């Protein structure tokens, strides 16, 4: 049975009906037409669908929509209004860290989550934050350099 949930997405309050099997990714992309969050695998294996749930990075393809009841979600659409996004974007421009761009919003959300935790992450912390994100285009060098630029 569809259930009504109350939640906050990108600082806006929502009251929405969600079927029990619907994932957060489906809710965002198909119901709310926020297509900035991408689906690369649907199985929690690639990181393309990463959003922030109460400030923590989660893979929205393996979170059920009803689990966000009472919580706050930030997607790339919400992030792009902020100053942090501008900084991340400048680092990505400087290192040319975008190719096809399909993985990019996911990486940006992961980097934002990392910077929320600490502005001076260690190499180990950076690896932990990015380790599960896949990019088939860049070979990661430019993305790593962009992150290092941000934490310098």
């Amino acid at each position, binding site marked *: 049975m569809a259930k009504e949930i109350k939640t906050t997405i990108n600082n806006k309050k929502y009251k929405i009906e969600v079927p029990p099997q619907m994932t957060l990714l489906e809710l965002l*992309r198909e119901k709310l037409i926020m297509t900035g969050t991408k689906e690369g695998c649907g199985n929690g294996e690639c990181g393309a669908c990463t959003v922030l749930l109460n400030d923590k990075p989660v893979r929205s393809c393996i979170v059920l929509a009803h689990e966000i009841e009472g919580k706050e979600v930030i*997607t790339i659409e919400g992030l792009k209004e902020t100053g942090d996004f501008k900084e991340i974007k400048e680092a990505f421009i400087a290192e*040319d860290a975008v*190719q096809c*761009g399909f993985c990019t919003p996911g990486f940006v959300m992961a980097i934002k989550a990392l910077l929320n935790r600490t502005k001076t992450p260690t190499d180990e912390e950076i690896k932990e934050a990015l380790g599960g994100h896949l990019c*088939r285009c*860049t*070979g990661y060098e430019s993305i*790593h350099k962009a992150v290092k630029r941000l934490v310098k």
Partner: protein
Amino acid sequence: MQNRHLSLKYIEGEFKMVDIPQAEKRIDLDKKISGEAQFIDDISFQGMLHALVLRSPHAHAEIVDINLDQALQVEGIEKIITGQDIKDEVINVDIGDHRPLAIDKVRFQGEPVAVVLSEDKWKAKKALNLIEVEYNPLKAVMNAREAIKEDRPLVHENQDQYDRHLNTNHHPGTNIFRHYKLRKGNVDQAFENADKIIENTYDYPQRSHTQMEPHGAIAKWTTDQEMVMYASTQSPFFVRTTIADMFNISDTNITVKAGYLGGGFGGKSDVSIEPLTAFIAKFVPNKYVKLKLDREEAFNASLIARGAEVNLKTAVTQEGKILGEKASLYFSSGAYGSTSVHIVTAAGHNSSGPYEIDNMEVDSYGVYTNTPPVGAFRGYGHPEVHWAKERQIHLIAKELDLNEHQVRLKNMLRPGSINALGQEIEEENGDLIGCYEKIKKKLDQIEIDKKPGKVYGKGIAAIMKSPVMPTNSAASATLRFNEEGTVDIACSGSEMGQGTKTAMKQIAAAGLKLPLEKIKIKEDISTDNSPYGWQTIGSTTTWKAGRAVMDAIEKAIDKLKENAELLLDIEKDKLEYQGEKIVSKDDENIYVKTEDICFGHLSENGLVTGEPVQTYGTYMPKGLTYTDPETGQGNAAAEWTFGAQGVVIEIDKETGELKLLNMMMAIDAGKVISPKMARGQIIGGMVQEMGGALTEELKYGKNGEMRNNSFTDYKIPTPLDLYDADLDVFFFETPEPIGPFGARGIAEHGTVGITPAFGNAISDALGIEMFELPLSREKIYLKMIEEGDLDV
């Protein structure tokens, strides 16, 4: 090079350009980083139907019966389509061996058997589960080795009856659908004269492209003759032609639109799911139908990659000179052969590697197997044969107790050499030896910080690459000056992350001598009104579409001069185009501003002199021919690119675990248009191929089912594999006479020699020789035990 159309104006003449203007960022970066860029699955329409596909669980089976009764009961189902609905629709890229859905039998696990259309994907899923299919399983053949045996099952019983676009030299009554033969010189004589014959067999398994964006297409038929499609494709014009051909209607009745691709790498070239999407949409006229693959389907139901066994017998002298070579290549090409005919060819004549071999006998076979069809993948036959050739050179040196660098340098192609196709190599083809020496030197300079319990190795490989494509594969561009003096340019080439559109903007700004801000490149492609481009493949866009842009620019400059001539009353030969203005060669104080005449000149009394400047440019490689069916000789490759690659690795003596320390490439790019993007292409290619070197291999169970169709089981490189590695890219710039300002294509080249560089590095570290990819930790570990090298 034979029949080569030489045109030096872009490297020596009027257009010579030392500094290409650099863009601050890619033109698509803002949209992509903010998630605003639309990929295929971000596009939806009101009332759009979702297509869910029932796929074969068997690799090879007869379809005995399909029962739709229960599935059709599900409320909200618009239509269910099966192979029984096919009339004479055939998908023919090169061989008409493929139908949009399986009819009487399935040939790979994942092949479409039925499609359910519904506005509600949950209902479609429910119906899909209620379709009953009865199969009669057949014995499957999973690789070329098995498939060429006497008593093998046939994947296609009647391949003789298929239409072909070219003579593939198939072997009737067998699984061999393509046989490329190359015969050059006198091989038997060479083998008689040899001091040694060295023979090895190298295996390069099938892989998956794993673009992060799975394939997708949306189609709608507006009449029973007209269709519009949105697709994640590298080849909108080719998709159009193939679909038109399938329905026997005119190309002009079909519109294919392509926007951004979330990666292509060849796996979205030719056709994959587009013909099926067009086929099923035809049953529900005036409705959009979306077919979007999930990750599992992207693995087992689109195109897959590589899959070759290469046997090399090399006749050498004691000094390491290669006298002759016999090569047999067997491609496990999957259930349908259309998308790999030219891979078999490219691999065949590139099996020489970047070496001059006077006497060659090559047999390259495309073989039907019960796997998903193999298609183009970054490198297109070259990585497969370089894995073999660059390991072989290493082993020849080892066997003869020579230095491998000397063996390479002794045999390398250089100006005046004749390559495998019979083409003469010229200076302009690039500095192979320079690139090789650069990597050798860089490897020598690296001092490894050695740790206890680890061993270290350095490996090197030389590479060459050419695009292999139909002889009439054209590129084109349109250019339009706007009233304000800005310029709109459209050109062939899909944007799939390679930065094509940004590079084109730079090329246009350089050619037009205008600031980047004045140039706008159109990004989306529609076959209705975009300039024609055969396909975005083979690292040819900068080179070929860039050349078409330059052609349009030349014509535009000529028109601008004509307008200026009318206004200034100075003959156009006496005028010089300087970008913002057109100046008299005799007196620099006499000029007109380009923006004042680009739309014709409007005088005070309203009279207009001249015409709006709008031009069209094209480029088609000149002088290409088919290869001779008996000798394989001919002008099959329009340009060559050379380079070298190296890696430095660390191996744990206890576990066999391999860690990358350095990876590098030197490449003769002709002219680097954007240093940052060029580096990104090379590094992206190298890392992608590192997956092939170390972990990637599609595995099949005993019934032919794909075993690793997820990122958990099919491991591609992750940030962790690269975080601590040092990567280097060195560009050489020997101008290529055709490319804009001398530029060559470089998008695939990073892949070509990475696997042998790793193989050679393992040999250097442990003294063990590997012949089968991937060079997994388990294989290294077992080999270490076998060789007694294990330090436990």
